[in-house]
């Protein structure tokens, strides 16, 4: 066991855990933020995706010790009121069905748009192919990423 500092969504948590515990379980079961999901445990499905130092990572496959003292953003950190453009686009395009994988999908899309504000279809495929959705919301994910890109560009031009 080790005492670690986790900086999640701009809030500091001190957790006393097995340093080998995957970050996913520390976020869900120790800190209590359940928006980040367990899907496969082997970095194949993307349901557990969070941002670590601004980069999307699979929290199921990173030991919590490797995330200590770094900035972690989970779905709850995008916004709780759905005000983030990616969340707004996801609602406008009615993406979720069961919704279980969508936290991971949204975190991946957000990271993509930060790096590539005007993604091509190929950019979208490359960024999102690590994310499985059994409900098959992929056509709407494509549309929503494009809609979010437009929303973000509009916001940027207003500023």
């Amino acid at each position: 066991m080790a005492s670690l500092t986790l900086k999640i969504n701009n809030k500091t948590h001190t957790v006393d855990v097995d340093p080998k515990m995957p970050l996913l379980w520390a976020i869900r079961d120790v800190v209590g933020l359940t928006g980040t999901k367990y899907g496969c445990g082997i970095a194949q499905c993307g349901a557990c995706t969070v941002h670590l130092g601004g980069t999307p990572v699979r929290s199921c496959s990173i030991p919590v010790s490797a995330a200590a003292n770094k900035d972690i953003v989970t779905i709850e950190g995008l916004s709780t009121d759905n005000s983030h453009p990616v969340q707004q686009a996801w609602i406008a395009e009615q993406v979720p069905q069961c919704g279980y994988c969508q936290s991971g999908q949204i975190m991946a899309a957000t990271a993509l748009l930060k790096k590539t504000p005007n993604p091509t279809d190929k950019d979208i495929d490359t960024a999102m192919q690590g994310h499985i959705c059994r409900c098959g919301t992929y056509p709407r994910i494509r549309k929503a990423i494009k809609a979010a890109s437009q929303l973000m560009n509009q916001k940027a031009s207003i500023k």
Partner: protein
Amino acid sequence: MEAISKNISRRNFIKFSSLTGAALTLGLYSQAAGKEAEIITPEAAENLGIEMNAWITIDTNGKVTITNHRSEMGQGSFQSVPQMIAEELEVNLSDINIVFAQGNNAKYGSQITGGSSTIRGTYKKLLKLSATAREMLIEAAAKKWNVSKAECYAEGGRVIHKPSGKKFHYGELVQEASKLEAPKNVKLKLPEEYKIIRKPLPRQDTPLKTNGSAIFGLDKKLPGMLYAVVERNPRFHGKVKSFDDTETKKVPGVKHVIPVKMSVFNTFREGVAVVADNLWSAMQGRKVLKVEWDDSGFEHLSTEQLYARMSDALKSNNSLSVRTKGDAEVVYQKSENKIEATYETPYESHACMEPLNCVAHYQDDKVEIWGPIQGPDWVQDFLSNLLSLPKEKIIVNMTFLGGGFGRKAFMDYPHEAAVISKEVKAPVQVVWTREDDTTQGPFRPGMMYHCKGSVNANGNIESYIMRTAGQNMDHQWPNADKKSYNGSATEGFLETYLNSLQHYSFSDSPLDVPIPVMWWRSVYASTNAFAMESFMDELAAKAGKDPLDFRRPHLHDGRYHELINKLEEVSGWKNRKKGEGYGVAIAESFSSIVGEVVKVSKKADGKVKIDKVWAVMDCGWYVNPDIIKAQIEGSIIMGLGAAVTHATHFKDGKAVEQNFNTYKMPRITDTPEIEIHIMENDEKAGGVGEPSLPPIAPALTNAIFDLTSKRIRKLPFNLEEV
């Protein structure tokens, strides 16, 4: 009128502030935890008000609460049930609360969310009881004003007196209204009068699913809850001979290691549960647990053995007759224009994104369950039997489901959770790892089909013979009649085809093996249609006819002609260009008809790619066209997965594929463009969640035949290797 249920305080209760806006919760909102409260206080529950009926509760402030009696697993019942009720009740969807019902089929009727039945099975009843409640509210207002009821109407949660413009909100009327005698024959709206139904309104649960606040089974927490993972026999049957938990008990956090068994059809699945104060510890403890199994007394089969046995069965003289007309075999034998073909479809895992899990709290003489559950009333009945508790002592709460597809209609995992909670005397969440979920079944049964058919001089079908081999799900239950035929052996086939044929025969050779099988989205239609519509394409080729034109003489109902015409028109069927392959398949299941056309072509490297899919859905009366489109998209992609990306194999009695690295799910890169059309007509409501899955595989392989003259008769196949 029924008094408000005392159990209502335990309902998963969510209040929506606006249609697409942020969701708020009533009751205990835990800001620190950053998630929805799930248990509301009895005080808050009182505020729900007076029940007009099992689905509609109105408080004295006019707040309307609508109960969703079915599970929400992505298919949209959380939207479509309230959307129906709000229409006839005359309330705005933005002003209501929605609550999940608990298991209670005495109150709601069947709650099993399966067979694409939520709308088609309950719409008439729900429309009528909503209109009835509305009429009672109008009558109560008329009495208060001492005016004629005919001068009053309802709108937006209010009753309005037309001549004077006076208004009462429903809350001011509910007490009186609930005491009135319910009118017997209320008039329902005509479709052209709908304001809410048939509109593509955004789903009420969407905002909860874009900010991480929707509570799935895996997110459920109770004070003092322990976590369990179970090492189960990988061969589905057999017994725990012994186990060594020396190392397991050394893992910090591990509290109990206990043998456990759960009911799976006619047997019990045995295992050893590791129970800890956190999930990670339980998983670590399981890794070092040593279990010895007694695997005697049943066969340890491989995929090759399973299909060899099905193949033998198809060649044998033993089969159960399902449905026959005329003398198909005699006509077939005499014909000079005949063909036969054998088709093969794989076993599949459901692979819901949320692995199975369940919370149970067994105390004294009752047990309460929370989880991603498709049939809360079934869980009640099942546990009542197994735990020898009266049904009312089994409280079953539905959370949101991270996918279901049939798997979460089974009752094994709630049983296992209840047994463990009883043993360790604490609330327990049992979590299946992805590997457990993928390897333990029940699976979609793998099937083989042998089809024979002949065409006459006019190029029409004169005989049609289909024989099915594979496991019959019904044969797994205790005391099942194994001489009973598979009632789903014709599921997927168009009813109108059957009417047009003079000579047909459907028969079934059940395979009796110890692999648990279960409904998988669209059930037997998901595999039957591959054989049926592939063979239809082969018969069309034999007759030298265009596949759409070949079907037309066999469609003895205008509804089918309209669908096939629409499919031809939207897909540009007749205007195909050189280098494009078009394939069609049409299937009827769960009272809906879906036709799909797939267009394929070759990439620069010569490999086949899917360019586009067109789908035309005729589900008759419907509620929300956008949810229907989402279900069609999802069904097509899931069906493509079972056609080209994944399958479950067996070796030495165990499932081979364990996780998504080998059970390859369809991804965004496997997703073609999909164009959807919904037929408008006055037919009865049909199912929506499943019927679009069956046609996709045969439409694809038929398109590949059109492009390459190569027949694919075995699924899954590798698109890269065509």
